[in-house]
C-alpha cells in the first residue's frame, strides 16, 4: 500500500484508469465479437435457408413424381403417362437449380461443415435416374417406389434439417423447427397422396397399406399440430388461410373414405388432384415460411452487422472522447499541481514576489487561493519579523558597539568565566596587552595562569576558584582569600622574561539562585608598583645621602678628606695591581684585595664613616665568597665592579664634602649652630671610636654653659685642635683600665672640653683629661731621641720648658702615623693652629691625675646663640 501512496499523481491516475479502460475494452470486445458472430450466424443461416428452399423445391417435385410414378406403375403404364414425363422435367429443373445454388461461392464455408450430408444427398439424387428407368420398365412395385422416393426425400429433409437447424437466435430457431415440422407433415401428406392414389387406382387397400396410411395420417396430423404450436402467428395465419377450402375438405372426405376401406369408387385422378391442390397449398405455406425466414435471417444479419459497426464506431468515438477528456483533465490537474509545487518551492526559497494563478474553481483552485493568502500572511509576518529583527539588530549593534568600544579601550582586563572555568570569547583588549598573549578565549583559567605564577599561588587559585563557584560560600569571605589579588606574573616574550604586577578581582554573576559566571577584572599595577619601588629606592637613596651628609657633618672634614683621599688612592692601587698582575696568582691577588679592603673598612669604622664601612663590608663579603672557590679571571669582574661602585661612592662623598664646604662658605655666619652641634657630635664620635679602638672606656663631656657659638671659620681649626688633643689623650694620657683600677681611679676615663667667654674679646677653651698627665722625663728622653733638642740644652730646661718640647716640630714620631692618630704632626700641629688663630695656650698637668690645656682665642663681639639668624641659616 505504501508503494501506492508514494507514487506520483500521474501514475496514480494510470493505476486507477488503466484497469477501467481494460475492462471496458474487454466488454466491448465481447460485444463486438458477439455481434460479429450474430452477423456471421444470420448470414450463414440465410444462405443455408436458401439452399434448403432449393432442396425443398426438389423434394416437392419428387413428392409429385413419386405419386405419379406410383399411379403409373399401379395402372401398368396406362395412366399418368404424360404427367410422368412432364413431372420429370419439372423435377429435373428444380434439381438443376439446386445444383446451381450448390455452386454458389457464398456457400463454400457453410458447406464445409455439411459435406457429408450434401454428399449423401447428391448420391440419393443420383439414384433418381435408376428409379425412373425401373419405373419405365414397370419393374418396381408401388411400395418400392414409395420407399425409394421416400428415402430420397428423407435424406433431403434431413439435410435441410441439418443445414438450417443451427442458429443462436431463439425465435429463428423456433421458426426453423416449425418449418421442419411442416416439411415433415407435408412429406406425410405427399405419401398419403401416393398411397391414396394407389388405393383408388386398385380400388382396394390391403392391411399393410392401411396401417401405413393410418399411421401416415396420424404422423401428418401430429406434425401439423406441432407446427401449429411452435409456429409464429404469421405462419399460423398463412397456414390457416391457405390450407382451407373445398380441396382441403375433399381431401379430408376422401381420407375418411379410405379409412372406411369400403368404397373405392373415387377416381384416383380426382384424389390426386385434390391432394395435389392441398399439397400445393402446403407448398405455398412452406414457401411463405421459407421466404419469411430468409427475410428474418437477412434482417438479423444486417442488424448484427450494423450493431457490429455501430459498436466499433461508438467505441472509437467514446474512447477518443474519453481519452481526450481524460488527457485534458489530467493535464490540467497535473499542470495545476505542478504549478502549485513550483510556487511552493519558490515560497520555500523565500521568493514571495509572485502569486499562484490557477483559474479553475476546483479544490486546487481553492487551494491556490488559500496558498496565496497564506503567502500573503507569511510576507506580512515576514515584514513584521524583519522590522523587529532590524530593530533588534540595531539595538544589538548599538549595544555591541558600545560594549566593544568599552572592551577595546578599557585599561582593565575583563572577561567572564563559566562553570568549567573557561574564559569567555569576549574579553577586553587590555587582556592581550597585560598578558602578552592572544590565546585567551575558551582557555581554562587555571591553565592560563599556570605559566605565569608560582606553583603555590596556582594551587591556592584552583582551590579559590572552587570556593568561588560554590553558592554556599559567602562571596566576601571567599574574596578575602583571593590569592592573586595582587600578584607578580612572569611572562616570556621572544625569549625576554618580563615581570608584571597585576591585580585580579572576581565578582559573581547570579542567574536566579545559581552562579552563572564569574566576572574577572585584571588591572596592570606594574607602573604603580614600580613607582612605589622607585619611591622606596629614592627614599633609600635620600636616606643614604642624608646619612652621607650627616656623616660628613659629624666627622672632622680633614679626617674625611684624608680618608677619602687615602681610600681613593688605595682603590686605584688595587686596580693598577690588577692591570699589571693580570696573569699572576689569583689567590694572592684576592688575598691582597681582601686585606686592603678590610683595612679600608677598619679605617672607615674608626672615623665613624658608617656608610663607607658598610660599603666596604659588602665588597669584603663578595671577596669572602670567592675565597673558598677556585678563582678565575672573570670572577674578579664582580669584585672590580663592586670596587668601582665604592670608588663612585667616594667620589660622591668628596663632592658632597665640597658642597658642604661651599655651603659653609656661602653662609659664613649662618650654619654656626649646626656646625657647633656637628662639631660636638664629631668630637664625641672621635672619642667613642678611639676608645673602642684602644679598648679604653672614655666619657666625653662638652661643657658650654654660656651657650657659646663658635664662628664657622674657626670651627674646622677648633675641631682639628680638639681631635689632636683627644688623640693624644687617648694614646698617651688615659691609662689602660687595669692601671686605672690599680691607682684607684674610675675605670672609665673622661675628657672634658669647657667653653667660656670671660671677656667679650676672649674665648677660653679648657681641654682636660683625667689621665696620667705628662711624664717629664720621658718627654725629655724622647725629644733628645728624635733630635728636637740636644742633651745639653735639655738639661738646662725647666719643667715648663720640657712641656714646651711636645709642641716642637718633629716631636711626634712617624710610627704614630695611622688613620686615627694623624700624620705625625702631634702637638706641633696644635700649637701651629692656635697660633694661626692668634691665640695663646697654657699647659698644665698633675702626674697620675690630669692633663689640661687652656686655649685663649681672641674673638669679636658676643658669641651667644642668635636664634633668628639660625633659622635663616637653616632654611
Amino acid at each position, binding site marked *: 500500500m505504501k508503494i501506492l501512496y508514494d507514487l506520483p499523481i500521474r501514475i496514480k491516475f494510470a493505476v486507477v484508469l488503466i484497469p477501467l479502460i481494460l475492462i471496458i475494452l474487454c466488454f466491448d470486445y465481447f460485444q463486438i465479437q458477439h455481434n460479429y458472430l450474430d452477423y456471421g450466424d444470420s448470414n450463414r443461416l440465410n444462405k443455408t435457408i436458401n439452399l434448403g428452399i432449393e432442396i425443398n423445391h426438389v423434394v416437392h417435385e419428387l413428392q409429385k413424381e413419386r405419386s405419379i410414378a406410383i399411379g403409373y406403375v399401379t395402372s401398368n403404364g396406362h395412366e399418368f403417362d404424360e404427367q410422368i414425363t412432364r413431372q420429370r422435367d419439372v423435377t429435373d429443373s428444380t434439381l438443376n437449380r439446386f445444383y446451381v445454388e450448390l455452386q454458389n461461392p457464398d456457400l463454400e464455408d457453410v458447406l464445409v461443415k455439411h459435406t457429408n450430408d450434401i454428399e449423401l444427398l447428391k448420391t440419393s439424387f443420383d439414384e433418381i435416374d435408376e428409379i425412373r428407368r425401373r419405373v419405365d420398365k414397370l419393374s418396381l412395385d408401388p411400395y418400392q417406389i414409395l420407399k425409394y422416393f421416400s428415402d430420397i426425400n428423407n435424406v433431403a429433409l434431413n439435410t435441410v434439417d441439418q443445414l438450417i437447424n443451427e442458429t443462436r437466435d431463439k425465435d429463428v430457431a423456433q421458426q426453423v423447427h416449425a418449418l421442419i415440422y411442416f416439411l415433415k407433415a407435408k412429406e406425410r401428406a405427399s405419401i398419403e397422396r401416393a398411397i391414396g392414389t394407389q388405393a383408388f387406382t386398385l380400388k382396394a387397400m390391403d392391411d399393410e397399406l392401411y396401417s401405413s396410411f393410418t399411421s401416415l395420417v396420424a404422423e401428418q396430423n401430429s406434425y401439423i399440430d406441432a407446427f401449429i404450436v411452435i409456429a409464429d402467428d404469421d405462419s399460423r395465419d398463412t397456414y390457416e388461410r391457405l390450407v382451407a377450402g373445398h380441396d382441403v375438405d375433399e381431401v379430408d372426405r376422401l381420407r375418411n373414405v379410405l379409412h372406411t376401406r369400403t368404397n373405392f369408387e373415387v377416381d384416383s385422378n380426382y384424389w390426386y388432384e385434390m391432394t395435389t391442390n392441398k399439397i400445393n397449398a402446403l407448398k405455398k405455406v412452406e414457401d411463405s415460411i421459407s421466404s419469411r425466414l430468409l427475410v428474418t435471417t437477412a434482417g438479423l444479419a444486417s442488424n448484427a452487422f450494423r450493431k457490429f459497426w455501430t459498436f466499433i464506431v461508438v467505441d472509437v468515438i467514446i474512447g477518443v472522447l474519453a481519452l481526450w477528456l481524460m488527457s485534458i483533465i489530467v493535464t490540467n490537474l497535473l499542470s495545476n499541481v505542478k504549478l502549485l509545487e513550483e510556487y511552493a518551492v519558490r515560497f520555500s526559497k523565500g521568493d514571495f514576489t509572485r502569486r499562484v494563478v490557477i483559474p479553475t474553481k476546483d479544490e486546487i483552485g481553492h487551494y491556490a487561493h488559500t496558498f496565496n493568502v497564506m503567502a500573503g500572511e507569511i510576507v506580512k509576518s515576514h515584514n513584521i519579523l524583519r522590522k523587529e529583527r532590524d530593530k533588534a539588530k540595531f539595538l544589538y549593534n548599538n549595544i555591541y558597539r558600545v560594549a566593544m568600544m568599552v572592551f577595546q579601550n578599557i585599561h582593565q582586563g575583563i572577561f567572564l568565566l563559566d562553570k568549567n572555568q573557561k574564559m569567555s570569547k569576549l574579553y577586553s583588549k587590555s587582556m592581550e596587552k597585560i598578558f602578552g598573549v592572544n590565546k585567551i578565549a575558551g582557555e581554562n583559567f587555571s591553565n592560563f595562569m599556570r605559566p605565569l605564577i608560582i606553583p603555590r599561588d596556582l594551587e*591556592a587559585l584552583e*582551590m579559590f576558584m572552587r570556593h568561588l563557584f560554590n553558592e*554556599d560560600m*559567602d562571596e566576601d*569571605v571567599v574574596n*578575602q*582569600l583571593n590569592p592573586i589579588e595582587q600578584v607578580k606574573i612572569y611572562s616570556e616574550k621572544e625569549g625576554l622574561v618580563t615581570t608584571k604586577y597585576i591585580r585580579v578581582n572576581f565578582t559573581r554573576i547570579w542567574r536566579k539562585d545559581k552562579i552563572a559566571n564569574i566576572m574577572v577584572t585584571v588591572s596592570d599595577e606594574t607602573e604603580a608598583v614600580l613607582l612605589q619601588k622607585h619611591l622606596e629606592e629614592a627614599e633609600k637613596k635620600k636616606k643614604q645621602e642624608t646619612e652621607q651628609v650627616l656623616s660628613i657633618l659629624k666627622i672632622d672634614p680633614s679626617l674625611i678628606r684624608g680618608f677619602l683621599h687615602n681610600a681613593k688612592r688605595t682603590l686605584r692601587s688595587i686596580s693598577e695591581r690588577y692591570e699589571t698582575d693580570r696573569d699572576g696568582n689569583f689567590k694572592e691577588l684576592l688575598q691582597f684585595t681582601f686585606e686592603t679592603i678590610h683595612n679600608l673598612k677598619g679605617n672607615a669604622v674608626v672615623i665613624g664613616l658608617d656608610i663607607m664601612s658598610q660599603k666596604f663590608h659588602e665588597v669584603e663579603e663578595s671577596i669572602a665568597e670567592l675565597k673558598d672557590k677556585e678563582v678565575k679571571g672573570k670572577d674578579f669582574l664582580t669584585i672590580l665592579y663592586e670596587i668601582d661602585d665604592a670608588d663612585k661612592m667616594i667620589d660622591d662623598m668628596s663632592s658632597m664634602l665640597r658642597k658642604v664646604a661651599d655651603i659653609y662658605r656661602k653662609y659664613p655666619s649662618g650654619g654656626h649652630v649646626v656646625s657647633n652641634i656637628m662639631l660636638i657630635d664629631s668630637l664625641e664620635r672621635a672619642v667613642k671610636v678611639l676608645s673602642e679602638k684602644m679598648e679604653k672606656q672614655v666619657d666625653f663631656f662638652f661643657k658650654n654653659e654660656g651657650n657659646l657659638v663658635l664662628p664657622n671659620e674657626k670651627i674646622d681649626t677648633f675641631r682639628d685642635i680638639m681631635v689632636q688633643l683627644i688623640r693624644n689623650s687617648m694614646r698617651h694620657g688615659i691609662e689602660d683600665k687595669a692601671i686605672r683600677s690599680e691607682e684607684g681611679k674610675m675605670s672609665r676615663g673622661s675628657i672634658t672640653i669647657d667653653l667660656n667667654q670671660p671677656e667679650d674679646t676672649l674665648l677660653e677653651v679648657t681641654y682636660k683629661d683625667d689621665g696620667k698627665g705628662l711624664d717629664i722625663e720621658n718627654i725629655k728622653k724622647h725629644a733628645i731621641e728624635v733630635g728636637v733638642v740636644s742633651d745639653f740644652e735639655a738639661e738646662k730646661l725647666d719643667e715648663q720648658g720640657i712641656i714646651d718640647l711636645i709642641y716642637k716640630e718633629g716631636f711626634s714620631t712617624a710610627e704614630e702615623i695611622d688613620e686615627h692618630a694623624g700624620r705625625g704632626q702631634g702637638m706641633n700641629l696644635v700649637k701651629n693652629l692656635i697660633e694661626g688663630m692668634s691665640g695663646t695656650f697654657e699647659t698644665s698637668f698633675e702626674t697620675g691625675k690630669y692633663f689640661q690645656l687652656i686655649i685663649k682665642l681672641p674673638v669679636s663681639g658676643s658669641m651667644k646663640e642668635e636664634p633668628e639668624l639660625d633659622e635663616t641659616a637653616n632654611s
Partner: protein
Amino acid sequence: MRLLIVDDSSIMRRIIEKNLKDYDIEIIGTAPDGHKALEIVKEKKPDVITLDITMPGMDGLACLDEIMVVHPAAKVMIITALSDKLTGLRALDKGARGFLYKPVNADDLANAFDRLLKRNENK
C-alpha cells in the same frame, strides 16, 4: 546563637569578647588551644566558633577537622594573623564558613557574623 572563641592569645580572646559585647550573641566559652576547644565543642555544641590558625599543640586546621567530625553543624569563622591565602582556602575546604584577618575591630566582627548568620536564616 552560642559562640565559642578559640585563640591562644588571651588578649585576642578578650578583644573578641569585648568587641562582641554589643552584638546579639552568647559567648559560652573560650579556649586557648585545639584540645580545650574540642572538649568544649563536644560538651556544649556551640553554634558558632571563632578559630585561630596558629596555636600551640593542635593548630586551627587540625582542630577544624576534629570539630567537623564531632559537630559538623557548627559555623566556624577563622580569625587569623596569617596572611597566607592558601592556608585560609584550606580552612574553607575543611568546612570553615567565615574568615577574618587580625587585627579585628567591632565592625569587622559584626559584619562577618552578620554574613555568617544571615545564611543560616536563609537556609
